[in-house]
């Protein structure tokens, strides 16, 4: 197995050196992000790969089994981790079915891994054998229902991130702005809402300023008509429900005067919601704890915001979109595993 770790590291080096520019272009094409944001994406993702990190992931979970990995259209380079995991966990063959909406990056990743002799290839057909799938809960249910008897299924479904902020200030706002802007809130680790136990209006104003500043370097990707319609509808609904709307060409921040969990349409649209204290933040998150995949917070040492049943990632603000290579990006237990 250490040979596979070495092969993965060689593939990562090749992606970084030989294909770095092409990979950046592919990230830009897939996400519409800026050159600078694409560089950050490629460099931050590839920097997580080290022999030690890969060694720590080695186990016999997929020993001797052929696995199909079904990818979702999500943050551009998530495909790399999704494919590498079964490879270092003993799979004899990894077939990859990319999303129809996002093919180029998985193709580059697979090409780089296969060039190092790793048993991985594209397979856009119906998933066969054991299946690891990423996507919407409904998609996972449908996939699991079509598997052959005895096949193992591991599904990674719906998830969302939230920020829990105890204090405020420019440093917190700048870190939060980075979490919001990275990948345009497309990923399951992206913050969809900010719960603020301090002065919510002050934090919202600081976040508004920080997002404007960041937009000079990382301009927002152009919204397509679907996202744009959802974003405009969200903004109108927030205003109608009484939130104060802070709007800029690159983003919208809303601020509430009462605690209520808010969803986001993505594309740098985020609500700042006041909570009395961290206990109230936990109570607001509790009904969605199972789907909560990441919490970024400045209250790392204070567990009061942790709702029961929460099994996602916890990290400092500004690090929500840079998860260490310690398992699937979403550390929650798989949404569905069969046979149990």
């Amino acid at each position, binding site marked *: 197995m250490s040979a596979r770790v070495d092969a993965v590291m060689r593939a990562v080096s090749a992606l970084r050196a030989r294909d770095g520019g092409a990979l950046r272009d592919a990230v830009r094409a897939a996400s519409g992000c800026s050159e600078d944001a694409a560089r950050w994406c490629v460099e931050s993702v590839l920097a997580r790969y080290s022999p030690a990190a890969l060694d720590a992931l080695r186990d016999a979970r997929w020993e001797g089994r052929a696995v199909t990995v079904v990818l979702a259209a999500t943050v551009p380079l998530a495909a790399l981790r999704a494919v590498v995991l079964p490879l270092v966990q003993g799979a004899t063959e990894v077939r990859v079915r990319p999303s129809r909406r996002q093919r180029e990056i998985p193709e580059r990743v697979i090409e780089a891994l296969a060039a190092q002799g790793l048993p991985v290839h594209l397979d856009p057909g119906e998933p066969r054998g054991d299946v690891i799938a990423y996507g919407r809960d409904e998609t996972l249910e449908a996939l699991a229902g079509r598997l052959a008897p005895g096949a193992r299924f591991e599904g990674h479904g719906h998830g969302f991130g939230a920020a829990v902020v105890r204090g405020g200030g420019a440093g917190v706002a700048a870190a939060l702005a980075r979490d919001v802007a990275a990948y345009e809130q497309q990923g399951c680790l992206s913050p969809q809402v900010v719960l603020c136990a301090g002065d919510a209006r002050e934090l919202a104003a600081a976040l508004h300023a920080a997002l404007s500043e960041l937009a000079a370097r990382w301009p927002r990707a152009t*919204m397509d*008509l*679907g*996202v*744009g*319609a*959802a974003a*405009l509808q969200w903004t*109108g609904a927030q205003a109608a429900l009484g939130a104060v709307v802070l709007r800029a060409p690159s983003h919208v921040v809303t601020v509430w005067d009462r605690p209520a969990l808010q969803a986001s349409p993505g594309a740098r649209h985020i609500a700042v919601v006041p909570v009395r204290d961290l206990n109230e933040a936990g109570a607001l998150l509790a009904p969605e704890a199972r789907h909560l995949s990441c919490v970024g917070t400045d209250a790392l040492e204070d567990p009061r915001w942790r709702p029961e049943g929460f099994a996602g990632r916890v990290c400092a603000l500004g690090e929500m979109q840079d998860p260490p290579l310690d398992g699937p990006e979403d550390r929650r237990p798989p949404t569905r595993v069969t046979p149990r």
Partner: protein
Amino acid sequence: MLARFAERWDPEHPAPFFVRGGALDLAAVIDSVRDAQGPSRCWAPPSRSCTSPICLDARTAAPPLRAQRGHADGRLQGRAREVSEGELRALLSRVLEVDRAQVVGEYGMTELSSQAWEVAPGRFRAPPWMRVTPIDPNTLARKEIGEVGLLRCHDLLNLGSSAAVLTSDLGVLHGDGTFSVLGRAAGATPRGCARAMDHLLLGAR
């Protein structure tokens, strides 16, 4: 609003209610339409949300309802039944005994006082006091002729409410000032009167 029309036009016959206990009384609707087909009576179906169930019901029962015009404003969608625009127009043509060319489309919504009417197949024209403009959701700027955008409606008849309504409908403006509606933006929440009718039809089962 409809009750006021009924009072003005026909004070002898107050507008009946067809919804009882959360369900639509289809038989009563059809009887009422037939009753209204005398020479001095006018029956104004307010939208597809009302006419469609009649048509659909009449597929298997009921003699035709004679009419001079049919009115279709899109497809009926929802949990109760899904009907394409083409099917809806064919049904209206058959059930109301009018030529397909006399079944005209309309673009309107509860939030607007005015409507745009179909003047050529798939092309709508708004009245002079209403403007329908495809816009770019990133900039809110007007799209060029031929470019697809989200439809924004300005209706000067909306005296007591917002004169500008931004929809999640996709549309395109043509060089002659007409526009086409291309459906809902992907991921947009389904909205409209047909949704309410859908609930009523489910309640009727």
